[in-house]
């Protein structure tokens, strides 16, 4: 069981990641704010308490892998990796600048600690399966963690992979869906209704759970349950808020990629720096 103090520590880590992510965006005045902010509590749990990684050996063979299939959440992942010591936090300020190692979408060849190149939605599902299969073939005990967006689940490739991973009984693959209810053009229910994603994955023979994706305690418990599975891949549907922790993004309908003023960013950063009392979440 995780202690309350550990939970508080992870919440602090999540707040730090949000802070550094917002500072990345502030330097530009635009970016994929919504989908970056909504996945940060998961990243805090994975990198703060779950994954076996070593910042000094980013491609260590026995590490756990993270495939950020919703590649536009790169800025959140970069902030997480910087805070874990993969590179200096100051490097984050080069996001999307000419020659940067921190592009909008994740690139395994550019950013230390990024395990897979993603950005064309749906593809991370399959590459994650490949990684999990390869590690299982080599009898490694590592886990592959996969992060999908809910809008991303419009892609047929997600469902090809869903069939295949279950058929192969890939219990070393643990997926998450950042179910923030919105995609680029608006609400998922208005564009191509996804229905009950947990039920769908369950029918596809995955071990599916649905939790509050902003509750670090629930995330840890769900991962622990997923790791008990021997015959099935796991999918954890995270109910999240698109833009979580960034008031101007939370309040905007169209918040997948957005422009904002420096004052707006400063306000969010000040609130995050003020701690849990100051943050609007």
């Amino acid at each position, binding site marked *: 069981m995780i202690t309350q103090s550990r939970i508080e520590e992870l919440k602090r880590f999540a707040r730090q990641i949000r802070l550094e992510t917002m500072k990345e965006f502030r330097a530009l005045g635009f970016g994929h704010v919504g989908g970056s902010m909504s996945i940060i509590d998961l990243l805090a749990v994975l990198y703060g308490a779950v994954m076996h990684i070593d910042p000094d050996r980013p491609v260590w*063979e026995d590490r756990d892998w993270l495939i950020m299939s919703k590649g536009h959440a790169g800025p959140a992942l970069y902030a997480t990796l910087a805070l874990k010591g993969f590179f200096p936090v100051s490097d984050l300020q080069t996001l999307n600048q000419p020659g940067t190692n921190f592009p909008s979408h994740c690139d395994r060849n550019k950013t230390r600690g990024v395990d*897979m190149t993603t950005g064309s939605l749906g593809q991370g599902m399959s590459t994650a399966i*490949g990684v999990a299969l*390869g590690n299982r073939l080599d009898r490694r005990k590592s886990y592959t963690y996969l992060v999908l967006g809910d809008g991303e689940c419009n892609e047929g490739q997600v469902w090809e992979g869903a069939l295949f991973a279950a058929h192969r009984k890939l219990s070393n693959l643990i997926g998450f869906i950042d179910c923030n209810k919105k995609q680029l053009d608006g609400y998922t229910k208005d564009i191509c209704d996804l229905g009950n994603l947990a039920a769908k994955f369950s029918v596809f023979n995955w071990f599916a759970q649905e939790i509050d994706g902003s509750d670090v305690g629930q995330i840890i418990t769900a991962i622990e349950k997923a790791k008990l599975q021997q015959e099935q891949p796991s999918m954890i549907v995270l109910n999240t808020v698109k833009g979580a922790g960034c008031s101007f993004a939370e309040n905007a309908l169209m918040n997948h990629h957005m422009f904002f003023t420096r004052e707006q960013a400063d306000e969010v950063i000040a609130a995050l720096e003020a701690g849990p009392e100051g943050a609007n979440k």
Partner: protein
Amino acid sequence: MTILLAKDNVEEKIAMRDVYCQSLIEHAEKDGRIVALDADLMNSLGMTSFQKRFPERMFNCGVQEANMIGVAAGLSATGKVPYAHSFGTFATRRCFDQIFLSAAYAKLNVRIVGSDPGVAAAYNGGTHMPFEDAGIMRNIPEITVLEPTDSVMLRDLLQQSTQLYGVFYIRLLRKPAVKVYEEGSKFEIGKAIQLLEGTDATIIATGLVVSESLEAAKKLASEGVSVRVMNMFTLKPIDREAVVKCACETGAIVTAENHNILNGLGSAVAEVLAENAPVPMERVGINDLFGEVGPTDYLQQRFELTAADIAKKVMKVIGRKQSNATGILPEKTNVHQAGKR
């Protein structure tokens, strides 16, 4: 590179698919990194033998090419060397974005095998007839596109591919090929091979029409026309040096391919010529048409891929070369017809 040419260009006894499967099993015995993937066409290729020998290392993904390519890319990220197969149509058209991003842009290590090139798709017809596969793949930076000519070349290129890194597209005939090389030949990826010397024109050929090109050159030789024949089995990176050398030395080029002349070998050679040595050129290949059903020999005639078609284009290009030498401009009708395409 060591090239030993066969004396007679006759159909081989062994099918190319059998050579592929046997070779891959042999390499997999020695190299635990090698894995194979298929999209419900294992039986067509004969990979059931690989599955029997290495059940843990054969992944039949079912009818899902996009997922198969992504899985192959992921496997390669963990150090595996994957060979992923489907028919050429589906191995390229259905999963171009996955090949482009998950494999090539991500700089991973994946071999894609597209079988039944062009008219070899025969009785599966137009839906299954890839006239565009190599051209599609040629658009991807840093990729290597290969079309093994016969069993000797296939064995050698497969062996090389196990040791190389990157994304490879291998255009694979499943049936027996016409023998062009003798055992012991060693090939260099990216280097064209001269099969016949000649001075009046050069045929640059790949795949199934290499043997047709040899036949055309031999027929023309008997009529006093000296034609060089090159085998350009690497479509990308194309051997620019060889193309320019042939242009300078023979002054006229004909390309021959079992593929659309757009984006395939004809385009690739034209690009080199236009930039380096613009000499008269003609292209034998699919003239921007869809495929159709029928036996391969019928389709070769239907799409003008025979030795006679190649010989006709050689005589035409030599005529243009001679006209150019006397200052006569190309016929206007040619330009007009080209514009209609």
